[in-house]
């Protein structure tokens, strides 16, 4: 199983390198980056083979490729990889616009390659525990979520995260999609309406995009949910941020913090408490699923369509910010794969 990585624009790429190498039977064939200086330097650090162009990497005999470019470059890279017949794991958000996300899904459908959106929270051990308890009926019917995916200003990792064109916006595009995907996964229902309010009070002098966002989603099944997507953690917070929610059901509520499994470390050298996560690494489980899906020539547990649905919510949230009122999501036309599934499942 040969895997490649396209672009080091997203810092997750570096973690993917060593996680991939820990998976038995997986070879990191090589990496390519349009910023050849950055690409060569990171390739050297991790002892990976650097290819001078995406084309040369894609022609080197890959089974799968991970795309970790800036958000707005996902479409051209996916189109290239799909045309080369290579299976794709694409970093989240799938795209900066619904049109791009749909084009990504369609390109992979037409090429017949597996497309997986990088939603690692689907593989989070605490969240999988909640999903199992929901499916077993232990928690009863879900009525509401009060959710947060707050973080530090992400420029600490890469400057483009606050670039409106490259990232697609600010806090909303950065921190909405994980929770949307988790809720869709838990509920088996789609978002029908979004309301969003934003401001740029944190880091007002440093960036031009929104740094705070509160959103209220309504699902087709009547469930409602808020998402706090704000970059509201100070730079000396004990970790990068977090993802947590209160899920209210007919039987009460559960408070879930996906990143609570930490040691609190006080070190003279740092002079502030630091949370050292000892919980399971959901990125590792996500990569294992991608590898298994490619190996078994099947759909991955998280699809391109899941990525598209989350982007639809992001785009609606930005429209709501403009209008000051909730925005209904347009009924998305069924993708070719959905149509095939519908036909396949039609009772005879």
């Amino acid at each position, binding site marked *: 199983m040969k895997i490649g990585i396209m672009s080091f624009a997203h810092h997750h790429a570096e973690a993917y390198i060593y996680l991939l190498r820990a998976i038995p039977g997986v070879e990191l064939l090589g990496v390519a980056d349009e910023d050849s200086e950055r690409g060569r330097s990171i390739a050297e650090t991790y002892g990976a083979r650097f290819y001078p162009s995406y084309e040369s990497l894609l022609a080197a005999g890959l089974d799968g490729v991970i795309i970790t470019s800036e958000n707005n470059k996902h479409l051209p890279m996916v189109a290239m990889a799909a045309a080369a017949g290579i299976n794709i794991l694409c970093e989240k958000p799938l795209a900066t616009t619904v049109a791009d996300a749909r084009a990504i899904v369609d390109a992979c459908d037409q090429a017949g390659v597996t497309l997986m959106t990088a939603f690692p929270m689907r593989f989070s051990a605490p969240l999988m525990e909640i999903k199992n308890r929901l499916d077993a009926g232990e928690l009863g019917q879900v009525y509401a979520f009060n959710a947060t995916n707050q973080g530090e200003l992400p420029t600490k990792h890469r400057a483009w995260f606050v670039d409106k064109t490259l990232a697609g916006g600010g806090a909303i595009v950065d921190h909405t999609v994980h929770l949307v995907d988790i809720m869709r996964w838990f509920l088996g229902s789609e978002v029908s309406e979004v309301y969003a309010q934003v401001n740029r009070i944190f880091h*007002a002098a440093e960036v031009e995009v929104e740094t705070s966002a*509160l959103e209220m989603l309504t699902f087709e099944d009547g469930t409602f949910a808020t998402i706090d997507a704000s970059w509201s953690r100070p730079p000396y917070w004990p970790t990068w941020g977090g993802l947590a929610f209160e899920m209210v059901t007919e039987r009460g509520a559960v408070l879930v913090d996906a990143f609570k499994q930490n040691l609190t470390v006080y070190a003279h050298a740092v002079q502030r408490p630091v949370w050292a996560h000892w919980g399971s690494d959901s990125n590792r489980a996500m990569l294992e699923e991608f590898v298994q899906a490619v190996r078994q020539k099947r759909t991955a547990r998280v699809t391109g369509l899941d990525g598209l649905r989350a982007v639809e919510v992001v785009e609606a949230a930005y429209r709501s910010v403009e209008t000051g009122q909730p925005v209904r999501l347009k009924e998305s036309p069924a993708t070719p794969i959905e149509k095939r599934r519908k036909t396949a499942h039609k009772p005879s």
Partner: protein
Amino acid sequence: MKVGIVGVGFMGTAHAEAWAATDAELVGFAAETTDAAGSLASLYGKQIFSDLDAMLPHVDVVDICTPTHLHYDMVLQAAAAGKHVICEKPLARTVAHSRLMVDACREAGVRLLVGHVVRFFPQYAAARQAVVDGQIGKPGVLRLTRCSYRPKKPVGNWFLDEARSGGILMDLMIHDYDYARWVAGDVEAVFARKIASAHPDASVDYALAILTHKNGAISHIAGGWAYPPPTFRTALEIAGDAGLIQFDSQETAPIQNFIAKSGAADSPDVAIPSSPVSESPYTTQIKEFYAALQSGSPARVSPEDGLAAVQIAQAAIYSDESGTAVRPDQFVELQS
């Protein structure tokens, strides 16, 4: 200064205990439920009055601790008799009534002090003071959470009657609308949803509201009657452009019990958040109101604050009903 309390439920009881800590003269209680009034009156050795009318000639201050829908008539009655008024939150069930109450007290030359007791809880007061002192810079996002169990009075449970209490979006969450406004200023848009609207037969209720302040800050308010008794959790987070303040009652509980209880666990009819402190916030509030009445100085809650909180609550209720974002000030235009 002679004080009479109207209403002898859990709030009348808390206020009686608070007045006992002052040198004001608590004259007695007026209540429909004479059994409860009798036990309170005998506890403090005070009189029972059959109603507010009978009590008015004997007092200087009327402390109104009755269900929300009764506040309007009682405040107008007390003001007409020239008595100062302390009124439990919410000031009234509607903005129109609240406005008339504020006007009536001003015209009668009597004080109107609204019991937004959260402003007197030490952690909430300290967090707001830290903001005022500039410790965290300009507030950008406020998150205020208040969740317990359904009020469980078996007979005539007015809390659950939306016509009388306004339901969870008013009765419970008005505490945090007022606090958000105290910290971040006036509110220009409200969007809210609650479980009871989508699932009228549900045994739990829970609501979420997003407030947009005129200065650009945004507030997230969560209110719940959803936990099994006796849990009452409150939490606050104020994120500023130069710092962050957090409080969570679960994480700051100084005592955690792992003690076996004999018999069935008990819980009060209406949950009140508590953390052992030397003075009850209800007492702190009554002491400040009493001092304000004696000196004529302002208290930390103005009549207009009480009115503004009802405006936000009514906007939240209308937002939930209409599915739209609502401006709180539209209720003055519509109804005055």
